[in-house]
């Protein structure tokens, strides 16, 4: 398939990923409402919110970095999505995956937060710097078990290519890394809780402490950009985890099923737990998840 066609397909995939992420957001609000005994908003509520926010206009003036931050965030999400193959074997849906893309993916996951850190400094509201400092410190904490899990997988298949990892898991369900290397999977999925910023790890937003963290001053177009960036980042992350641990997918239906399972794992955890303090969350990630990641690496090396 020529590059231009592939690029076009990938851009279509980006738009579809944003829509899928927003739908997942609506599903989450619905499910959380059901858990809390409420009826909940319609599933398409995030689309309405997005449209409303786009039709707003801002009257505030900050710095350039303030306006660039949501672009960084959305860009990080899109770059991450463009690197992760959705379905191996369908050229339209395996994006620009190349050997060693795992390293770049690990960078892109944290790219958005770094962009927010640049922008939050210009928000002028103290909640934004406080929130972003919390976010970055928590990020460095859960990056460690996540990176260890990635290293374990890479050492397992002797390649840093997501494609290789997915191909190595084919054949049987037991070949999935979820079962082939359960320790690395445990480390990665615990880090996934921190990535998704759901309770008990939602210390960045924290409406009861620093409402609402870095996006405090954002409204209108910039907020809509952040919403879509968050959506596509979530989709890219769950697709990545599906590729790494659940053996990829062969059909879109399988993609939806596996990604929803992965995502709602963090939602259900968040439904029943209060929020950690910052240092408690850091201690958590540097505790058992890191140990599990190290053990996963050792398991691969001694095997």
């Amino acid at each position, binding site marked *: 398939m020529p590059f231009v066609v592939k690029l076009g397909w990938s851009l279509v995939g980006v738009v579809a990923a944003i829509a899928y992420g927003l739908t997942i957001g609506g599903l989450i609000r619905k499910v*959380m409402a059901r*858990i*809390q*005994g*409420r009826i909940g908003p319609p599933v398409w509520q995030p689309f309405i919110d997005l449209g409303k926010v786009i039709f707003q206009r801002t009257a505030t003036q900050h710095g350039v970095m303030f306006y660039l931050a949501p672009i960084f965030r959305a860009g990080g999400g899109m770059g991450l999505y463009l690197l992760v193959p959705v379905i191996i074997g369908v050229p339209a849906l395996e994006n620009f995956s190349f050997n060693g893309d795992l390293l770049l993916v690990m960078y892109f996951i944290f790219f958005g937060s770094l962009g927010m850190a640049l922008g939050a400094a210009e928000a*002028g*509201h*103290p*909640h934004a710097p*406080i929130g972003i400092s919390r976010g970055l410190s928590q990020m460095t904490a859960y990056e460690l078990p996540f990176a260890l899990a990635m290293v374990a997988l890479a050492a397992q298949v002797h390649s840093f290519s997501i494609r290789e990892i997915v191909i190595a898991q084919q054949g049987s369900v037991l070949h999935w890394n979820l079962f082939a290397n359960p320790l690395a999977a445990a480390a990665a999925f615990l880090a996934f809780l921190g990535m998704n910023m759901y*309770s*008990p790890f*939602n*210390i960045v937003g*924290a*409406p*009861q*402490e*620093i*409402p609402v963290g870095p996006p405090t001053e954002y409204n209108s177009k910039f907020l809509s950009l952040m919403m879509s960036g968050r959506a596509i980042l979530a989709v890219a992350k769950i697709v990545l985890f599906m590729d790494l641990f659940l053996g990829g997918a062969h059909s879109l239906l399988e993609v939806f099923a596996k990604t929803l399972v992965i995502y709602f794992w963090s939602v259900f955890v968040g*439904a*029943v*737990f*209060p*929020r*950690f*303090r*910052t*240092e*408690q969350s850091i201690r958590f990630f540097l505790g058992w998840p890191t140990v599990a990641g190290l053990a996963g690496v050792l398991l691969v090396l001694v095997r």
Partner: protein
Amino acid sequence: MTTEVVELNRWVQIWFGPQHPGITGNMSVQAWLEGDTFAGGVTHVGYLHRGFEKLMERRKFIQSFPIVCRICVPEPDTNEYLLAAALEDLSGLDTEVPERGAWMRTLVMEMSRLQMNLMTLGGHVGSMALGTAPNWLIALRDLILDRFEELTGARVYHMFITYGGVRRDLPAGFAERMEENLRTIEKKLPLVDNVIFDSSVFRKRAVGVGVVPEEWVDEMSLSGPIVRAMGLPRDLRKDFPYLKYPELDFEVVTAHGSDIYARAWVRRREISQSIDLIRQILGRMPEGPYCAKLPNMLTWTIPPGQTYVRAEATRGEMGYYVVTDGSDKMRRVHVRGPSYVHGVALLERMLPGTNIADLAPLMVSFQVCPPEIER
């Protein structure tokens, strides 16, 4: 809302409130942050000042009852009872309150205590971003509000207790419906315990946080769950017996640790206690009149005098200081709300060294109620 970096670039001055989801009600805490902990803070109130005491000096006694219930929004009945008790104490009417009226007052007080505790227990974890338990608990609270509506005609501001007794009689079949609601609440409470008190994260957040030293109790005249969470069995229902509490069978709830967890646990056990008390009251409700024969409220004057009556609100000691001068209006009313000490002096004294994440749980565990600080 305004923000600036204080000199030395060491402390960040940050305002919590008045528009802040973590602040209980419409008040603000001006705090100085050092890293993640507070170096100190000042409480600012007055956003809800309505001048109750000035207004009550202009109104007749009966006209004051619709006003006093606004003093604490979530728990108005304590104020109504206290004003009635103060006026009865000054006018010698307190001996004429009929039995059934006193029992119904006790019933209303316990119902309001129950709904307030349900809401506050939800706020304990709601301030830690667990939205599930508050939703359940406030839905349970609405059952009690329905009974209030049936009994008094209003959900929140009841204006039910007047001097001489209460305003209306018990509706027929009230006890059965209340019993049904109490059973519903008791059925749900284990779920709530499972989410709140069995949660390891809540233990990590609450145990050992916001410990109030025992020396401060007499020094600052603390009261309520803050004291009971230290293990001191201080409850005005036992210490200064009023209404029908001496005839009821209940133990003062205490806990140990004097931290947020202990206070939440005290509230949780007081919910069960209130449920039990409501059952006792409804079982022993006597027949008879529910209000004494009263003088004409338009020409009623009270001889000069001054008194101080107190009752155990959910948050601590609520007291009314009433001065009359022989006219048909009050000379002076002063409302001593528990939050007056807990929300200003105690909170400012607790702030240094508190983590920024613990301010909201701390305020909820003190049950700071701004309207009764500034009236």
